[in-house]
């Protein structure tokens, strides 16, 4: 009996077994977040390699797949951090949206002000067509903002965690999320109405 358990224990910590057992689960996790097959595959490979290196630290407190996903999650966050430091020039200028001359300083500029959406907008937003528009508009966010937005709003990471990972202050985070939402709303309105 003991020897069967030993064999099973040995086999389960067998990296050769890993790719077949966990490859697709990890790939799915990565692909859904980075949206790129090659990159997802690289992240999965790096995860397995890191797991192999750190086998000794695996204490069996969680399952193997949980442990491997935690490693992968770390790499996905690193990927977002790299993107957030991109020096991509942002075409977005808040000065286009709000007036800067007194006495109406800070008021919406008429052409940029939110339009009236259709009365059943909420229902229409459940359609696949709208989902496509939403995803496209999120992809259009400048890389600098996309990381913040994805981590905070989509992955629902806590604010303090996002700030720690991306090395920004919480006021930075608010401003970035705000600008992202302004652009997102505008993009959706343009593409949809």
């Amino acid at each position: 009996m003991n020897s069967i358990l030993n064999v099973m224990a040995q086999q389960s910590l067998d990296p050769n077994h890993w790719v077949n057992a966990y490859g697709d689960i990890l790939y799915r996790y990565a692909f859904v977040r980075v949206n790129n097959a090659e990159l997802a595959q690289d992240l999965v490979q790096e995860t397995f390699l890191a797991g192999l290196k750190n086998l000794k630290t695996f204490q069996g407190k969680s399952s193997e797949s949980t442990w491997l996903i935690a490693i992968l999650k770390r790499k996905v966050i690193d990927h977002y951090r790299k993107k957030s430091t991109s020096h991509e020039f942002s075409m977005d200028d808040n000065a286009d949206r709000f007036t800067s001359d007194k006495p109406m300083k800070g008021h919406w500029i008429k052409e940029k002000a939110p339009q009236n959406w259709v009365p059943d907008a909420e229902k229409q937003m459940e359609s696949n067509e709208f989902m496509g528009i939403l995803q496209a508009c999120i992809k259009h966010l400048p890389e600098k903002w996309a990381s913040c937005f994805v981590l905070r709003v989509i992955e629902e990471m806590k604010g303090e965690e996002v700030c720690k990972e991306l090395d920004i202050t919480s006021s930075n985070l608010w401003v970035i999320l705000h600008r992202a939402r302004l652009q997102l709303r505008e993009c959706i309105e343009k593409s949809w109405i």
Partner: protein
Amino acid sequence: MITCEESTFLTSKKQQDKLSTSERLQLFFHLMMCKYCRRFANQISLINKAICRMRKRVEQQSTHICMSEEQKQKIQQALKNQQTK
């Protein structure tokens, strides 16, 4: 009186953080008087709901995503190389 620019910022901030009492009051009075900012607040809320929905749908629809045999073999090879070092 806060401006539209400030009101939209508070609306955004409200999504993830508690506003102070004075912020809440200022936002409330501005929204009472400004239809554009009311629309903005409403639309942001609809977009948030849609994002939740999108996340759930992506999870549900991702179950068919797999690596090809080729991709798997490439990774297995890389692992073997690492093991024999």
